[in-house]
């Protein structure tokens, strides 16, 4: 009886892990898309609005959903805190604190990390170029992420159940 209960638990855990993994595969392109849109909005804020970076980030945060919102919000807060953080430090610290909550992976993070070095430190044209470049790279990552989603989303769902089943068989 107890064995049966354990087996069910293991199966359940495996399945859930599989679904979770699948959800991450599905969420990644979505979040990258959202990030690209955020980049485009940032570009507009900079090129037409002359909005200072902290304000622009705060506005972006207001329009975005979680988990991207907290990245931009905390970066804006670091910048406006008056404790002498540069834009670069603020963005990098915020990435460090909040990246884990997103479904995105290292390449996207690297793109933002790279962008943090130039954001706010040059004239408009240069800013726009860098942001456009980041958006371009993100689009590339998005395409890759979609491929991965198509390949692995269903597999990981069934794989979870199967791994659970395998463990159960091995244990018995």
């Amino acid at each position, binding site marked *: 009886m107890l064995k049966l209960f354990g087996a069910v638990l293991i199966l359940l855990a495996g399945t859930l892990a599989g679904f979770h993994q699948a959800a991450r595969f599905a969420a990644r392109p979505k979040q990258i898309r959202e990030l690209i849109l955020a980049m485009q909005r940032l570009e507009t804020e*900079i090129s037409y609005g002359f909005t200072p970076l902290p304000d622009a980030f705060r506005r972006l945060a207001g329009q975005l959903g979680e988990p991207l919102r907290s990245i931009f919000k905390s970066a804006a807060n670091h910048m406006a805190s008056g404790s002498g953080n540069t834009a670069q430090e603020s963005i990098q610290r915020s990435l460090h604190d909040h990246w884990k909550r997103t479904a995105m992976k290292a390449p996207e993070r690297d793109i933002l990390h790279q962008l943090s070095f130039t954001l*706010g430190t040059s004239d408009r044209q240069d800013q726009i170029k860098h942001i456009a470049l980041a958006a371009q790279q993100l689009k590339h990552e998005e395409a890759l992420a979609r491929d991965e989603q198509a390949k692995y989303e269903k597999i990981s769902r069934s794989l979870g159940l199967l791994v659970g089943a395998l463990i159960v068989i091995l244990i018995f």
Partner: protein
Amino acid sequence: MWYKKHLLVYKRKAHGLKRRQLGGGRITNPNWLELFPDRIKSILLRLPRELLGKLEEVRIREGRPLEVNESGGHRFVTEEGQPTLDGDKAYRPSRDDSRRFLDLISNHSLYTLEEELRKGFITVPGGHRIGLAGRTVLSGGKVEHIRDISGFNIRIAREVRGAANAILPFLYDERERRMKHALILSPPQHGKTTLLRDLARQISSGGMEAPIAKPAGMKVGIIDERSEIAGSVHGVPSFDVGPRTDVMDACPKAEGMMMMIRSMSPDVLIVDEIGREEDAEAVTEALHAGISVIASAHGSAPEELQNRPAMKRLMDNRMFEVYVLLHRSRGKTAFRIMDRQMRLLQLQAKGEANHA
């Protein structure tokens, strides 16, 4: 925060100091230390209090000694915050320091300062002005902006209430109850802007402090092309420029004067550093419209103005009724007043003006 305490002490000391020296002058915005990145701020805070209270300029040059300037005396600063004349012992701001400083003064957004970079300086909250030096980028033969910025000159703005006390009586026409058209002449750093600011405040609020028949407050329009007189941030002056004062911030002088005349019906127009052809035209326009103009220009003597065509025309037409010549030596400002025929009205009065 820990440095707030220091600031308070320094504020109190600075006040006491200035009061003795200037008789009524008061400094109201000692927040300039907040501009600096932590490392340079801590060095500056270790400077002797007396010196810190009198600082007029702080110069940051990447890889070269940190320099401070008070009342004409230049000193380098060591890492321990000691003033020195030996450049080798001085603290040398690193690339990181200057990058950080630029990031802070631009509110992390250099791209919002394109106009400022074209002109070569930034005005920050508190009315302080930061001059920039670096490599310029040209476009069509004109400076488009500055990149690789490595030199900063922080001019600490001082609001000295009462700076205009001694001069104001000469500028007021008691019979006609209006201000005279005046031109203030002085070399850079001799207190033009501070004087204009206090003039605006006192004319606008009604000359309560000047020892003359109390004139009623007048409407004052300030054209503040370099955001220096009012130190406006988001259009709101950071200095007290009086209750009836309108400020046209960051506006080209000539255009600003015309806009003010058309729309704000000022009694007195105050402009800083006129000199170009179109400025002279706008001044003439204002004078004909019955508006008193109080302007300033670079130069130490009226004769120098003869070399500048636009100013020469203004003088030849006897547009200004009063010329005020400022001269400062060892922290004391003296001034001379001349009438429209260049006759000296009053000799070497000891003034109470201070540097902006």
